[in-house]
């Protein structure tokens, strides 16, 4: 978290600079089938975030050494397009993207019935075309919808959302400025039916009480987001 400077982001009435209340989400729109050549795909526009996810497979896993006898491997790539941020991003190796790809893969592997496709590979491609804080959550959410759109069997969809702290107040779904100047960020990946978790990160500074508050905001928001995901899959089916 940036955490420097004294930027006022929430007023005495609990109204944030973009007009939201502490527990409010940014607007979210989801559409499926946006990448015609893929086996499944989704676009998520979440605030000013703009992400697409494509699924290819299940297909034969190659190179051979990545094959698993008893299950499919998820080959997940999270990437930010060069024009997705305020300063251009050079294409190529990037430690942040590698870490997010890894935790995203691990979150999705927890729900995909990988045992149904031994020796195969399912490619999950997440591209952030425009970034405005919370892209890892947007990406996981887009990938979940795309997997469902591709007909890949899952125990549940993963809903991902982050809450955090700004000006000592815990709020839900940080926007860009809140992410830059806020004091903490807690992204989670939630199974909406059971309330269980498959993804969790956090950085910043939260007391134990604040941490619980942020956790609860995420749990609550997950249900709203899940509804939008389900609607997109109903509407977007072709």
């Amino acid at each position, binding site marked *: 978290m940036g955490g420097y400077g004294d930027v006022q982001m929430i007023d005495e009435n609990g109204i944030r600079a973009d007009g939201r209340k502490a527990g409010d989400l940014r607007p979210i729109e989801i559409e499926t089938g*946006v*990448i*015609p*050549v*893929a086996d499944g795909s989704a676009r998520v526009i979440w605030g*000013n975030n*703009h992400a*697409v996810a*494509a699924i*290819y497979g299940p*297909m034969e896993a190659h190179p051979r050494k990545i094959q698993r006898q008893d299950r499919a491997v998820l080959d997940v*790539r999270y*990437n930010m*397009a*060069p*024009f*997705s*941020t*305020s*300063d*251009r991003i050079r*294409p*190529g190796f990037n430690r942040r993207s590698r870490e997010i790809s890894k935790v995203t893969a691990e979150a999705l592997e927890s729900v995909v019935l990988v045992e149904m496709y031994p020796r195969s590979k399912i*490619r999950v*491609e*997440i*591209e952030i*075309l*425009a*970034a*405005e804080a919370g892209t890892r959550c947007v990406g996981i959410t887009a990938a979940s919808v795309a997997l469902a759109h591709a007909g890949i069997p899952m125990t549940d969809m993963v809903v991902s959302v982050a809450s955090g702290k700004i000006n000592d107040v815990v709020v839900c779904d940080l926007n860009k400025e809140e992410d830059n100047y806020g004091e903490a960020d807690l992204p989670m990946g939630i199974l909406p039916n059971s309330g269980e978790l498959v993804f969790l990160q956090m950085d910043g500074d939260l007391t134990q009480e604040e941490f619980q508050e942020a956790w609860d905001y995420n749990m609550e928001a997950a249900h709203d987001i899940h509804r939008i995901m389900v609607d997109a899959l109903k509407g977007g089916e072709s």
Partner: protein
Amino acid sequence: MAIPLVPQLLRNHLSELAEQNQRIDGRGQWESREIDLQTNVLPNAEGSAMVTMGDTIVYAGVKFQIMTPYPDRPNQGGLMCSAEVRPVAGRNWEAGPPSPESIELGRVVDRGIRESGCIDVDDLCIIPGEKAWQVILDLFAVSDDGNLFDAFALAGIAALRTAVVPEVKFEVSDTDRPLPVSKTPIMCSYHKVGGRYVYDADGREELGGDERIHITLGDNDNVHSLQKGLKGIFTASEFAEIMEHAKSRCGELRDLVHGSE
């Protein structure tokens, strides 16, 4: 790019169709797929466009950086054009360092735009010898069903022509200004499929076809860039025929670009 198996059956099928003057999706030899062009589609790019040609979908985004002019050209900024086809765009595209295919894509599109002179690099100078704008055009495919070249070139020029120089953000002046782009170079691409050239090949035609030719024409039909790609032999008269088609088609696409601004 992962090399798909040699599609001999597909090649045979395409040859039979060609003999009957047909194409695999029912189009005529010189007919394009449905095309859609939208500009200003990406909130964090200083200029952007999305092009849909059938099931091919690409984005172009323009970003700016401050550069130090080269010592031998102290009054000039720069233009850089980079194409990425990441694995999101199709089953055969792979992650990793840029493939020869994507390098060629970027360089051919770059030459068409650069050589047209549509961007006057002297316009990009801020302080001679010290500071100049570098314009970076990033071409990004999200769905590859063939003819990425034309889609990239179209999205690229449309993104440039709607780009805004971020003078405020970089503390160069107190007001942003449109990037001056004086011309509208357009690329048309032709693939030999079933023994004859067709315009705007789709993914299956590329897979089962042979060599391809890319032509970029400027506002007065001047030639700015040519490229022959892939194994194959062509004759002067074949070339003359596609050049004729390019002259008329480039005009139509130029109108499309101007209409999107």
